[in-house]
């Protein structure tokens, strides 16, 4: 370790940013070299002076107003977030409301008694098994839906009707 090495490493030495063996080598050299020792001491004195000067200034600052101001800013952030969330949720809510309204309209049209003011046009569509269903009408029927397969099973009480006919 030479004086030039110490000059090059002085900052990192004063900041304890060197590997331990290098720290030790610089310290050993400085202990036996008054010029390098003085150089390191001046650096450390500068560090202390800067720290003391800035800390003394900062200690004199009144920070009591910081939290109220930050809390007010945080309130504004929260309010903006809340509106933003509502705005994002609006399309889905609107679609849901429309769907409910449409369902309600269809349901109302389906259950309300027909008050016809004129001749009604009835559109009927005959299903392939309509005749069979008509024959079951009024019989003792039970339905069961298999949850896994989705199959609907219809039990018919044969004694109660005339299926065989």
């Amino acid at each position: 370790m030479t004086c030039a090495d110490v000059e090059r490493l002085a900052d990192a030495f004063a900041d304890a940013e060197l590997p331990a063996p290098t720290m030790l080598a610089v310290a050993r050299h400085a202990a036996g070299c008054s010029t390098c020792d003085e150089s390191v001491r001046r650096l450390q004195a500068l560090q202390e002076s800067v720290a003391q000067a800035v800390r003394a200034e900062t200690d004199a600052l009144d920070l009591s107003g910081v939290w109220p101001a930050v809390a007010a800013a945080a309130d504004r952030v929260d309010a903006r977030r809340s509106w933003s969330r509502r705005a994002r949720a609006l399309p889905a809510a609107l679609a849901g409301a429309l769907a409910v309204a449409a369902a309600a309209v269809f349901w109302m049209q389906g259950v309300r008694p027909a008050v016809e003011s004129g001749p009604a046009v009835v559109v009927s569509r005959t299903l392939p098994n309509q005749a069979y269903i008509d024959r079951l009408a009024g019989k003792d029927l039970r339905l069961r839906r298999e949850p896994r397969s989705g199959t609907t099973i219809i039990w018919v009480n044969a004694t109660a009707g005339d299926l065989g006919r």
Partner: protein
Amino acid sequence: MPSEGLRAVPSSDWELVRRAREGDRDAFRELVERYQRRVASLALGMLRSREDALDVVQETFAKAYQHLDRFKGDSGFYTWLYRIAFNLCIDQQRREGKLADLRPPHDETGSMEPPPTVDGPPPDEPFQRVRSAEIGQRLEQAMRELTPDHRAVILLREVQGLSYEEISRVLECPKGTVMSRLHYARRQLQSRLRELL
């Protein structure tokens, strides 16, 4: 019954951040109170104005609250805060047009003629308070003459005690740049305080 000697273990920054993200305002307040003075010392050192420094402190924490979900936890919370504060200080100086006056007169790696210095008191001067006051005044002037980048590196190292690695994260520059800026800034300050330190 708890003993008087028992003290509550302070929550970690990360724990407070997690709670603050979940809407716990008290947790965020604890973070503010934990770091407001340190952020203030950086802002005051950078801006040399109490009013501007207080504005920056408030804005730093307001921004931190707003972007709390962006804090990943891969560096210290204070490192993240300092980065916000440093950027706000730079913005503030840009607004005031101060940056143009603070360019380095020479390349930071090059040598520079020591600036003219005022004669200090004799070495045996017994009035330490006068001496300290003069050191303070000279330091104040010398800090003003540093560029924001050099001033920041000095403040983060000497006042905040950050490591080179942490400073490089705050200033978003390589560790080698931190070292060269620190070396340059210290030599500048030393040349201004030659007779006093």
